[in-house]
């Protein structure tokens, strides 16, 4: 099965192409083709996983050579797949969650006339994402990287007849391009200083390279990761990306694509090993974003945007862990997997709520939905407990490890990073509980035409499966450090480090903060009445409602100066370059005007000119002795 991993990319890609080309006649069966293609990737992935489990841990990295891709002198690149525990983890996550979301979408998109196109894009996404994680070189990874970007763009703008949705798609695309430039520059630096862009050579050469080189590569890779994973300062697109259909938000903008940045950082571990400054930058970006996202999430009334802010914050946790180096890599990926389950589950829950509430997304018009949608309530509740980090649910095992790891180190760093992670846990508890209570508890604040009802089984079954994962996956993987051991061939074995505070103290502190967050949220949004329109609020709440003014900041810092710069360049072009060319042409024109007069049509004056010329030539010849 390991050698068949190319099927993981080929099958969904082929299905995507078929669905795109088949046209309207594919309407009755197109979505089932999409589901089957996605399901087949899970089956192949599972087969490869079982085969991999049978191997010794040292032999688990399996290279699949596909074809010679760029045979060209200095740069000789083969297209190949690298199947190791890290990529296998992603394959299983993407194909499993992806398949569930495909099934969910069959029901969710039932009344959409372009459902087959939706599935074509979803399949395209699955193919690109699997290419991203399976690639054995940065360049092939980049192909997948761009592929998921394209799929994300197409799916955010799936309902592009609404101008603001089309704008959201464009925004995501443009912000992602900035990150992509980072990846391109990183590859350029690798080629220039390490001589290759495939993982094997780059990682073999990395220890010998200078710190400056590795730091530069590390920082540009971080830029790439920030773009794809919506980390500060490139976080602005994720909230607007919720314009896409909810299954897309669950799959792409919560569970898989946005975690690609974390994958990139963890995959590039040998580069960060030689670049402590870049590594610290990763951790700092993660710590900052996790607090920023949590603060934004606290003020959002739109259920999807609140979840998007939460995604940003949770990926901040993963980035923080990835920035801690080998201590944190395994936990970053662990949290990524558990987050993939509980966040996808909650997004699907949000989709189910919207389905029953006529696409209402304002949580102030929800309330008391636990009676109307029992399955959604329970599955969402399990996801909620998981993200809170309540033992024994998934999030506890992964997030707590990250908080512990953040407190490992010397000097001020563990206190800052650990403090951010700890505060983030409390804030998370508050905003997720706020979301949960506003939606499912309190009094019904529905509009008159809303009659909430439970979604069909096609939607609830994937939610139930993800909820079960949210509940137990963390425990299953955490027992005996099973997950960390599984990833050891990639992340390396790490001796246990003691945090600056004892572990039980940290766990207790986390749980106290979480309990505090839940209690405050219950007092304000569970027990008390929630106003149906957002009340006037303090400056900080207004800032959080407006995503910390990220768009205004971007406009003031980048867009305005950028516009002025381009205008200046256009002016300079006209005033200097164009003007120089124009003036020269004018001068030649004037010369022509003058010389033209000698062309008077008089034969005898021509003859005289010729004679004078002849005399001059003779004089030159005689005098110069030519």
């Amino acid at each position, binding site marked *: 099965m390991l050698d068949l991993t190319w099927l993981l990319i080929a099958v969904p890609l082929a299905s995507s192409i078929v669905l795109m080309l088949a046209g309207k006649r594919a309407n009755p069966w197109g979505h089932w083709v999409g589901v089957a293609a996605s399901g087949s990737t899970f089956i192949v992935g599972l087969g490869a996983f079982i085969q991999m489990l049978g191997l010794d841990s040292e032999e688990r990295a399996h290279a699949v050579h596909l074809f010679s891709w760029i045979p060209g002198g200095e740069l000789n690149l083969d297209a190949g797949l690298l199947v190791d525990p890290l990529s296998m983890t992603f394959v299983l996550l993407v194909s499993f969650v992806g398949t569930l979301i495909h099934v969910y979408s069959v029901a969710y998109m039932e009344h959409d006339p372009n459902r087959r196109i939706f599935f074509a894009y979803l399949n395209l996404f699955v193919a690109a994402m699997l290419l991203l994680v399976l690639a054995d070189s940065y360049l092939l990874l980049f192909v997948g990287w761009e592929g998921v970007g394209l799929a994300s763009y197409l799916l955010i703008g799936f309902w592009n007849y609404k101008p603001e949705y089309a704008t959201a798609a464009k925004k995501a695309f443009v912000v992602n391009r900035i990150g992509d430039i980072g990846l391109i520059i990183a590859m350029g630096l690798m080629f220039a200083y390490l001589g290759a862009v495939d993982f094997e050579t780059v990682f073999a050469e990395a220890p010998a390279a200078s710190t400056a080189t590795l730091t530069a590569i590390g920082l540009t890779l971080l830029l790439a990761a920030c773009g794809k994973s919506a980390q500060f300062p490139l976080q602005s697109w994720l909230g607007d990306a919720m314009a896409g259909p909810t299954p897309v938000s669950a799959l792409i903008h919560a569970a898989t694509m946005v975690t690609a940045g974390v994958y990139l950082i963890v995959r590039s571990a040998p580069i960060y090993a030689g670049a402590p400054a870049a590594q610290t930058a990763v951790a700092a970006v993660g710590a900052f974003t996790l607090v920023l996202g949590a603060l934004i999430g606290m003020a959002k009334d739109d259920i999807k945007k609140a979840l998007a802010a939460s995604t940003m914050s949770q990926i901040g946790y993963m980035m923080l862990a990835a920035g801690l180096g080998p201590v944190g890599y395994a936990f970053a990926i662990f949290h990524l997997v558990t987050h993939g389950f509980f966040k996808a589950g909650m997004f699907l829950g949000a989709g189910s709520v919207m389905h029953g509430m006529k696409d209402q997304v304002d949580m102030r018009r929800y309330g008391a939905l636990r009676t109307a949608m029992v399955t959604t309530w329970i599955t969402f509740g399990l996801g909620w407990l998981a993200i809170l980090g309540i033992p024994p649910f998934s999030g506890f095992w992964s997030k707590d490890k990250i908080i512990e790891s953040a407190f490992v180190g010397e000097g001020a760093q563990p206190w800052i990073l650990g403090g951010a992670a700890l505060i983030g846990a409390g804030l998370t508890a508050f905003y997720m509980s706020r979301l949960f209570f506003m939606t499912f508890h309190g009094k019904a604040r529905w509009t008159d035409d809303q009659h909430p009802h439970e979604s069909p089984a096609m939607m609830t079954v994937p939610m139930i499966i993800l909820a079960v994962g949210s509940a137990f996956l963390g425990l299953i993987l955490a027992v005996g450090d099973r997950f960390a051991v599984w990833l050891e061939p990639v992340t390396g074995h790490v001796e246990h480090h003691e945090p600056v505070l004892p572990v039980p103290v940290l766990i207790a502190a986390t749980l106290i903060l979480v309990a505090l967050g839940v209690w405050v949220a219950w007092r304000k949004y569970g027990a008390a009445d929630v106003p149906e329109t957002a009340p006037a609020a303090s400056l900080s709440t207004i800032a959080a409602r407006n995503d910390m003014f990220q768009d205004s900041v971007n406009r003031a810092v980048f867009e305005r100066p950028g516009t002025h710069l381009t205008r200046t360049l256009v002016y300079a072009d006209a005033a200097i370059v164009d003007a120089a060319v124009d003036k020269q042409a004018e001068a030649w024109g004037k010369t022509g005007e003058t010389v033209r007069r000698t062309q008077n049509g*008089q034969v005898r004056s021509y003859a005289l000119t010729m004679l004078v010329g002849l005399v001059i030539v003779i004089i030159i010849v005689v005098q110069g002795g030519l």
Partner: protein
Amino acid sequence: MDPINFVILAAILFAIGSAAVLLRRNAIIAFMGVELMLNAANLSLVSFSRIHGEIDGQVMAFFVMVVAAAEVVVGLAIIIAVFRARQTISLDEPSELKG
């Protein structure tokens, strides 16, 4: 007789020919001036051939004669065509081809 005298004669003939071309308005006369210049050139070619004792100059002179004969045919035809069109053969009259 010193062959250099023929060269001097050729120079004089050339000067007369060019003066005719530059100063006379009548196309036929100017044309005669052109012929005179050609033959002055021929004369100097033959003289130099004699001075250097080589035959190249004489051969060249024959070439010039042949070309001159062809040129006369074309030139006279043009003059007749101009005359037919304008009833004059003044060189100053047709000046449409000015810039």
